[in-house]
């Protein structure tokens, strides 16, 4: 059984098919890269998995259970956490409290506030923001805000983590740190799906890559296979080889 499976997932915005008839699966312990040109439907697919949007038609199956009708907060409590392409943090709330939202409400278990605080603290230690825990989230740099989102997602004890362009706009050093962090997250037993435009990074750490173009899945396979796939090169790598 796959950890997460999508069957014939579609989403239209007016006449535009943002995602059309995409079948996909993710196995436990994998790092799956989701790539494709801008507007290919990658973020829409994340929104469908995390229930920000509902597929129509189509089904999302998590651990053998159809989770399509569930609201977003239940998806999170079942163990699917996400970050956002444009950071969505609680700007006027201190860093630690931001992360506590995840640990207090997102784990699906009843948490006392001291347990939640401990868990939040651990997540902050992991992303390296422990020293800034009392700062207002809005005062952080963009790179720090991205780490904060990651910490908030991790604090909800996910089994599956959706990372939406977590490396965009980071310096090469920061990208290397992020890659290291993602590998560590996987070694803790968390499955990762990541959308990324930073090619070297995604090629290096993904076990498998899914390529979307105009809402359709056009290819799927190991990074090496994808780099050699003529279709992929045509729609994506060929245009942005030095992205």
């Amino acid at each position, binding site marked *: 059984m796959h950890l997460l499976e999508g069957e014939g997932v579609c989403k239209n915005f007016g006449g535009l098919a943002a995602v059309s008839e995409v079948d996909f699966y993710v196995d436990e312990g994998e790092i799956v890269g989701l790539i494709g040109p801008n507007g290919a439907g990658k973020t829409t697919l994340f929104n469908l998995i995390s229930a*920000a949007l509902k597929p129509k038609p189509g089904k999302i199956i998590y651990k053998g259970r159809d989770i399509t009708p569930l609201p977003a907060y239940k998806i999170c409590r079942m163990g699917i*956490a996400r970050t956002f392409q444009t950071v969505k943090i*609680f700007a006027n709330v201190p860093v630690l409290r931001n992360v506590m939202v995840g640990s*207090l*409400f*997102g*784990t699906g278990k009843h948490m006392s506030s001291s347990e939640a605080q401990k868990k939040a603290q651990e997540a902050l230690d992991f992303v390296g923001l422990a020293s800034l825990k009392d700062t207002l989230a809005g005062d952080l740099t963009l790179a720090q805000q991205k780490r904060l989102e990651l910490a908030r997602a991790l604090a*909800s004890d996910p089994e599956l983590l959706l990372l939406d362009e977590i490396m965009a706009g980071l310096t090469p050093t920061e990208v290397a740190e992020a890659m290291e962090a993602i590998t560590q997250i996987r070694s803790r037993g968390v499955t990762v799906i990541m959308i990324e435009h930073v090619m070297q990074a995604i090629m290096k750490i993904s076990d498998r890559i899914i390529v979307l173009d105009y809402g359709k899945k056009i290819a799927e396979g190991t990074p090496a296979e994808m780099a050699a796939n003529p279709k992929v090169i045509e729609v994506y790598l060929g245009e942005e080889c030095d992205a």
Partner: protein
Amino acid sequence: MFAGPTGYISLASAAFYGVGLYTAAILNAQMAFPVVVILAGVFCFIVAVLVGMLTLRLRGVYFTIFTFGLVQLLFYAVAEVERIATGKRGRFVSTEGTETVYYAMFIVAVLVLVTAVLLRRSRYGLALQSIGEYEQAAEHSGVNVVRTKVVVFAVSSVFMGMAGAIVATRRAYIDPGIAFDLNVTFMPVLMAILGGMTNLIGPVIGAVVFAYLGEFLLTRLPDLYMLVFGAVMVLVILFFPQGLWGLLAQGWRKLRGGRRAPA
């Protein structure tokens, strides 16, 4: 309590106030005063939960407009029911002594503040704050956004209903026009804006200043009362969007030497 952290502005105060007034009008003759007040709170809680479940899925200004409509809806509904059931426009309310009313009001006011402080410190406080900051992110972090909003909306409406029930016993006579008065709806919002909505002290300061300012203008400038009052409100909103408390807090920060102007 509800609007501050979430940024949702409810104009339904009058609806709950009116429900409170009518509860008192119908029941105060038969039951002990405190029981009536508590019942008014219970009724409001039920109404608010129903209304909340229907409307709190709406975001931002749509919610505000709906709550405004609710007041009107109840006004016409009650007026019509009264016309059919009793054939009269209003009702008499059996009254209570001034002191009883004063203490009852005082207790409710203390309860409001205590509840608000407890709420703010509880997990609901953090949930509400996260909703106000970024509703979508809150939802994806596991916050049951709709339930949190409904519960807090309902709890805050309880106090409005209690206040209504208490005031009813002072008025002796009520009709739908008094009960579902739109001024009652705007007053608390204006008081909160005047004082500052970001914390609990703001609205209290706002209410005090508001009441004194209102009385002062009414006695000194009876003709220009509304005009001056309106001008003051516009100035506050334009120049001190954080309210009077925000102004004080800002001044305090300046005094302490930190010259960083708050954004």
